[in-house]
């Protein structure tokens, strides 16, 4: 199902890009000083498919793993983790080797269930392959369930599942403090 949504999302994006270039192309006399969209509006660009919504941590928090912590799903996810050679990069104990540690609470691309889903589905720039074409959503969610069971992932409410492993806070889910927000 996500496969069908991707092109639609890309189309939306390219339409928006076109709109942008048109409006900017008309500003040969200098950049306009009024009528710019607010910062809030600009951050609301949808990325196209179910996991793409998770670019906004708030949306990712509304999307728990449909399998929860179901033991069968976790076991199936673990089997997939070995079968699809995930263990080759992230190690059989998932503590990382060529790829990052999946048991700690530091996540380059977000540690919420839907964010982990997206990393698996889309792949990531430093070598993580995209599995969206090979694995249906239910299998990806099982992998996510297994990774969540390792304790480093975050619950949808933004708290680490295993506080003992939460020595690092992922920037993706940390709300800026008022002090940080006010200083440039």
């Amino acid at each position, binding site marked *: 199902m996500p496969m069908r949504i991707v092109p639609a999302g890309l189309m939306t994006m390219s339409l928006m890009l076109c709109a942008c270039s048109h409006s900017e192309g008309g500003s040969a006399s200098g950049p306009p000083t009024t009528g710019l969209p607010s910062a809030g509006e600009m951050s609301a660009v949808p990325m196209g498919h179910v996991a793409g919504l998770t670019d906004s941590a708030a949306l990712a928090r509304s999307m728990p793993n449909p399998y929860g912590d179901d033991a069968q799903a976790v076991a199936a996810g673990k089997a997939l983790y*070995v*079968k*699809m*050679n*995930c*263990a*080759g*990069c992230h*190690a*059989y*104990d998932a*503590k990382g080797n*060529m*790829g990052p540690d999946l048991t700690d609470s530091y996540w380059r691309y977000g540690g919420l269930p839907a964010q982990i889903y997206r990393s698996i589905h889309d792949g*990531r*720039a*430093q*070598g*993580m*392959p995209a599995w969206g074409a090979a694995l249906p959503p239910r299998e990806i969610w099982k992998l996510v369930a297994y990774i969540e069971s390792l304790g480093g992932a975050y619950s949808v409410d933004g708290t680490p599942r295993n506080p003992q492993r939460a020595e690092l806070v992922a920037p993706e889910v940390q709300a800026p403090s008022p002090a940080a927000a006010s200083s440039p």
Partner: protein
Amino acid sequence: MRNFARMQSPRKSGLSLAGALLLGLLECGHPSQAADGPAAAATPPVPANNLSGATINFAPNDPAGEWRSQARDYANSRYSPLDQINSGNVAQLRVAWTFSDGTLHGHEAAPLVIGDTMYLVTPFPDMAYALDLTKPGASIKWTFKPNPSPLAIGKACCDAVTRGIAYADGKLIYNLLDDHTVAVDTKTGKEVWRIKMDNVETGATMTMAPLIVGNKVFVGNSGGEMGVQGWIAALDVGTGKELWRAYSTGSDKRVLIGADFKPFYRWMKGEDLGVSSWPAGMWKHGGASVWGWISYDPQTNLIFYGTSNPSPRVPVQRPGYNLWASTIFARDADTGMARWAYQTTPHDEWDYDAVNEDILMDLPIKGRVRKVLVHFDRNAYAYTIDRTTGEVLVAAPFAYLNWSTGFDMTTGRPIVNKDKEPKPGVKIDNLCPPDIGGKDWQPAAASPRSGLVYAGIFNLCMDLTDHEVGYIASTPYDGMEMQRQAAPGGNLGEFMAWNPATGKKMWAIKERFMTMSGALATAGDVVFYGTADGWFRAVDARSGKILWSQKLGSGVIGQPISYLGPDHRQYIAIYSGIGGVATMRVDKSMSGFPAPGGTLYVFSIHGDSVGAQSAEPAAVDDAAAPPANANQGKP
């Protein structure tokens, strides 16, 4: 400080020094004429205290004060003829200057010095720097940023490293992690050509240092853990045009095996063994990549190099010898045609590879001077091999091993310990050495003065559980679950001197952490190496006594070099930057393990260097001021 004092006392093993000297005298009784040919004519006579009687052909005979290739010469000796720094004054070495290159992956390369310029290549993103050695502090002349694809970072098994840069004809040539070979103009720092050599999407990367001979540059790929097809290729230095490519698996046609191919041992003779020594079709993802060192013998026009482990790393999935994985090849440099091959670990079950350096020496063995290559294999056997035929002359363990119970000199094969053969789902405890071997790629150095070879080695074992794997492009075709730990003795590293004629260890210095740096031997009878916890040491080449140690910012897995500056002063240079496979968990969990870094350290006696006497703020550039004024106030 306590640690430092403790490490200063060298520990000896193997022969005593007295015994070694006696042995050397006996061996020197044999006539040890250097091999014939014009290049050998320049070879000095064998010194009386040369313990093995070895001579080395130092072609292409680069200027003594320069370091123009990773190993300095075709023979891969890593020997510097400079002797200003010697066993008598090396204790006065101090930092002359340093250079941070802005990157933090493992730093495994040697700098090059050509004329008054030093050239460096960084790990990913594979930048190159030219430093002006005539300027105080060696300021940057130019920086080259090739911008390789970040995808390659996650495809490299063992950190996003490079093992160095090559030079010829006004060009630096090196490999980018994303499978391009690139040539850069040494004067301008501009790209001359860039050739795509493999597909990073499949998991192939390039990490090895090219070797240049004449108008050819030899390069190979990495990816034995990813099920790639290994290859070596020769490119034209001027244009990058591919002249030949030899694959490591497949038909004789692909492997460039023809009528001239004469392996010494019968079990490596036959047609298309690169296909038939595998289960049907598995050679296509059979690994055997070419990520180590290449050496060259000008007298026979042969290059020598080794191939990596077979893929997958689970041996029960690929019954057969798995040729030509874990194999040393001799090939004609002009045509690429194989002359002989020797598989060091048949049907490699432990990821031992054969990529380590092949040091070319001429060595008296049993009364006859033999043209040999000396090779410390990951499988923990040191080989002295006749490089004209592929015959094993000496094979002896140099590090702790239990995968093999002995060596059959008739067949040229190690005898496998059946108890240490992996089976899927069965955990084997205490298998030695582990995948990274009794020694990894870190190159040894050889001295024509002592006749010895010096190497940083490991003292490691692993607990291993194999898992069957399927080939999925772009993912590891691997299947080894392992935990590495120290072998008996508890030390993870060791630096040793080896007699390649006898297969005997002459002395050894045990190191608490892994010893994964290259070695440098000099005419001052001093040998240099570094440790994973960041100590850089100078050792007496004959006694193994530590003469000097300096703690650097990060761990040392680079290769030391020596050169003469424009001030005719001898310098020693080494990169500090831990990474590669030296960041194993047993290491990282020990106190004293350093953080990453990326700094070149350059040393001289008393730390003296170009412009050091006038090391005060440089005059502010002022176009209006005449040059004479700019120097005012400087001594």
